[in-house]
């Protein structure tokens, strides 16, 4: 047991980063789940990372906004590609996303064969560490989330085609760098999965609660048990989702996915 880490000054920025990621990822996750393309986040995050490697080849400064713009542009290009494939081969969208993921991931390895510094940067981009987040880093993320949420709200939560992939690409590019790819995947899929069968505002509310509880509990446990925070949160998210699912099933059996 270790009570030292249980300090708001240490866990506060990380907790806020988690809530920020949840804000956009919970509604997006419900769409990802209903479209059946759950690996899209991994694929687009890898494509964004490829964009950064490409930018380094053209001499863009490693720190600063140049890299962010390159990552966002690459992710948007990936989004456009996925919109195109969805239109032409809708039945094969999931395998195509999987193929895009491995191509982007291994393409990065090939390009970086002689550049370990680029490798470090790539790793930073994919394995953001939630505890290293500072309040000032959260400001651009908060602005982006507000814009993306506004867009989703204008489209009544149902984005189609390019709008969906575009919003998704930007949300992922920002969140992966804040909290890392594992937490992004968990924030997207787990709350959405726990609330399958529910609808509308009620579903959003329950999914947000599960997500927020998972992050808060995970951060607290990682402090007390002295374990890496990101990995711990993934497990508490899953635990909260499981308990949430059981509670939902006991309150209203009608929400069970089997009877849908």
């Amino acid at each position: 047991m270790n009570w030292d880490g249980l300090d708001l000054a240490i866990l506060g920025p990380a907790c806020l980063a988690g809530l920020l990621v949840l804000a956009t990822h919970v509604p997006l996750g419900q769409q990802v789940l209903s479209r059946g393309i759950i690996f899209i986040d991994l694929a687009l995050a890898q494509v964004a990372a490829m964009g950064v490697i490409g930018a380094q080849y053209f001499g863009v400064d490693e720190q600063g906004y140049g890299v962010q713009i390159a990552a966002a542009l690459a992710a948007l290009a990936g989004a456009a590609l996925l919109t195109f494939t969805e239109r032409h081969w809708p039945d094969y969208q999931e395998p195509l996303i999987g193929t895009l993921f491995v191509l982007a991931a291994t393409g990065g390895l090939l390009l970086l064969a002689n550049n370990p510094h680029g490798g470090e940067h790539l790793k930073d981009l994919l394995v953001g560490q939630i505890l290293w987040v500072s309040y000032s880093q959260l400001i651009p993320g908060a602005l982006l989330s507000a814009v993306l949420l506004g867009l989703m709200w204008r489209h009544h939560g149902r984005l189609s085609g390019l709008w969906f992939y575009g919003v998704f690409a930007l949300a992922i590019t920002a969140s992966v760098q804040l909290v890392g790819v594992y937490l992004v995947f968990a924030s997207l899929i787990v709350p959405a999965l726990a609330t399958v069968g529910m609808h509308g505002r009620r579903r959003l509310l329950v999914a947000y609660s599960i997500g927020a509880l998972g992050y808060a509990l995970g951060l607290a446990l990682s402090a007390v048990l002295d374990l890496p925070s990101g990995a711990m949160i993934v497990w508490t998210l899953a635990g909260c989702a499981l308990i949430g699912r059981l509670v939902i099933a006991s309150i209203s059996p009608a929400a069970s996915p089997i009877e849908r």
Partner: protein
Amino acid sequence: MKALIWAALLLGSAWSIPAPALNVFACEPEWGALTRELAGDAVTLDVATSALQDVHQIEAKPSLIAKMRRADLVVCSGAELEAGWLPQLIRQSGNSKVASGPGSFMATDQVVTLDKPSELDRAAGDVHPQGNPHVQLDPYRVLAIAKALAARLAQLDPGNAAVYTQRLADFSTRWQAAIPNWEARAAPLKGRKVVVHHASWVYLLTWLGVEQIGTLEPKPGVPPTSGHLAGLIEITKAQSALAILSAAYQDPKAGEWLAERTGVPALVLPFTVGGDDQAKDLFGLYDATLDRLLGALK
């Protein structure tokens, strides 16, 4: 959230307990061990990493930030070895005492480093512009670092200055007595050749007069390619290498692969304090390292 606030309050009340004079945060086990030698129980010591971790990169845990917050002195290798996490950790802790100045002690700043690149070229791999940071396996450099560290401890904690001076004298005597013993034992290693995993042995090999004829990583931090490995098999066989060295924290697969194809034994050396059962302190680390190397001669 509520639980966090409660815990913060609880923690606040615990702060009123009088603390020992100095809180030392050591990045690596070897500097933790050296601090113990020089300060004994006069300081509280937190060691951030273990011998089985790659110190180039570590996972973020809340306890690390908590330890950094209460640190009065940070003792690390420096030369960008911890560049991937130490700056973030210090920034996150908000502890300006250890960001620079007397609260920040970098071992590589106290000695002349090897492998300093004459010009910076990122194509040369994961090289450190301030030279190779893995200085803990040269006993002369360790002695110089010990003297500088004792002086720093005395500067930050004048009340215990006598303790640090006395313990430094004691450590120096034992260390200087040990060096000729080690050198006598290691004499048969002189002139022998080794292949290494990562360029982390240059200080040890320079001290012992052992020649490095190849690295498993073609450039520091870059994984091996098949062409590079083929060339390495040639060199290892042709120059009848003594051993293939890797550190306790590294994946032994690459070394074993080469050993299988060349008949040259793959050795896992402790690399730092805690790297194996024998390397319990700095003296044990050197004893264990020499035992392993001499074992390959038979």
